């Protein structure tokens, strides 16, 4: 499978863009590897275009009959501060601590 055919489905540039959006960083080898694998997968997925969906509605929820699920405006379910911060990788007093947001 030559690069030309592969690039039709996804280019290395797009892989880098998508990696940035996903907060992943890939080295050149990684970009190349993922580009090949994703292009393969996307090529297979092209077959979806064979299906005529002109008049078809999308299914976003498997049980389309469920609608209007609510909870009432009542205090419920809050957890103690220590439980909330228990898994925090770093904390400062009662706050989560993160490197500075530039």
């Amino acid at each position: 499978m030559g690069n030309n055919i592969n690039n039709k489905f996804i280019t290395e540039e797009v892989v880098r863009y998508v990696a940035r959006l996903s907060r992943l960083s890939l080295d050149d080898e990684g970009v190349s590897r993922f580009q090949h694998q994703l292009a393969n997968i996307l090529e297979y997925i092209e077959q979806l275009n064979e299906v005529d969906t002109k008049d078809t509605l999308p299914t976003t929820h498997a049980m389309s009959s469920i609608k209007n699920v609510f909870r009432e405006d009542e205090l419920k379910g809050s957890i103690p501060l220590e439980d909330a911060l228990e898994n925090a990788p770093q904390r400062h007093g009662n706050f989560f601590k993160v490197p500075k947001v530039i």
Partner: protein
Amino acid sequence: MKEDLSDINAYKNWLIARAEPLTSVAAMLVDRASRIDKDIHAFAAIDAEAIVRRASRFEKKDGKGRLWGVPVAIKDNICIKGELTTCGSRILEGFRPPYNATVIEKLQSEGALLMGRANMDEFAFGSSCETSCYGPTRNPMDLSCIPGGSSGGAVAAVASGQVVAALGSDTGGSIRQPASLCGVVGFKPTYGRVSRYGLIAFASSLDQIGPITHNVADCATMLEVISGYDEKDSTSVDIEVPRYTESLSKGVKGLTIGIPSEYFTGGIDKDVSERVNEAIKVLEGLGVKTVDISLPHTKYAVSCYYIIAPAEASSNLARYEGVHYGRRSPDADDLIGMYIASRNEGFGLEAKRRILLGTYSLSSGYYEAYYLKALKVRTKIANDFNKAFDVCDCVLTPTSPTTAFKLGERMDDPLKMYLSDIFTISANLAGLPAITVPCGEGRNGLPVGLQLMARPFAEDVLIQVAHAYEQKR
């Protein structure tokens, strides 16, 4: 008397006869599991102290509860309060949820002895249980083979007799495919039948928690315990839970089973089609009527799934970046650097692949062509089944096109790995209940599984048919 973990009733009888405090039984079970698991690695880890501690809490209770003292393995993506729950991933290293999943509350209220963290493909991405950061699980039937995935550990724990039952999760076949490859019963309920609250999400519109057992009767019991409306889950359905155990005695006379031609074409192992065809004969012998049906959009199921599932997963996994929980990389000076380093170090290759694929199909310019298109094809797939259920009560297919493959065999070919799920994926896309039951072995001695799918909320029909078949076999 030797311990009997082959089914719930046999185990409970043994437990009563044993007349020992639950804590010492628990200690014995842990010890036994650790020995058996040396070669199999069904468990990411067995927390002996936690298990015995839980047993001591139950000891004070009076022994009532449908699952009292029954050892149940829990897949590593179902939250148990205060216990390590890490989805087979480095990025959730050290994470202890401060709350129980709803299904855990239900199991505990029936006295089940939770045996901890069954190994799984990282974040449930996989069909072989090879992508866990804790290393692979092996198939108890042949240690050189994979058990299937992503609930490979839960299935292997049951199949190797370390536990009586297990809870797994199924997004594209993750309960049924491994159950089929290891020769046990696996059930994916209708979407919305079982609460997802506390199930660490992979693909929210496809995930369901389900039971893994040795036989259909136990499966019915487990389903009764874990099913039901949960006000904490907007997608759970408020429909009464039937007594599934009552379906066991109903027999199958008068039922019609649809055989879809698309599931019996080339690409299936000969052994698999032979065993499944034999099973069809058995069912016909019991009085079942079979009809040929067509599910014409079957061949698009994998493509459809591999757009929708990674898309939802890419969003569900965005929260793992070391800010509020999980592993934070020590190597970062600024915020974005921290996000990137934590995620790079924390996620394995398959996770990254799916995140990239999912982000891509949702990104600006590609959404219509990919995500929206897949959602429409999903409608078509669901409609195929709607039409089919006009003429039959359930649909019968092989669960997996092959028996278990060798460790490492498909790791370098993601697409080939994805195609392992070709028969199970449609049930998730359409939200249907589905069960796999063992139906024999291939020439290699490896198990073959038979799948049955039914209308939404027709779990009882599946129990009815599967049990009748199992008893006759």
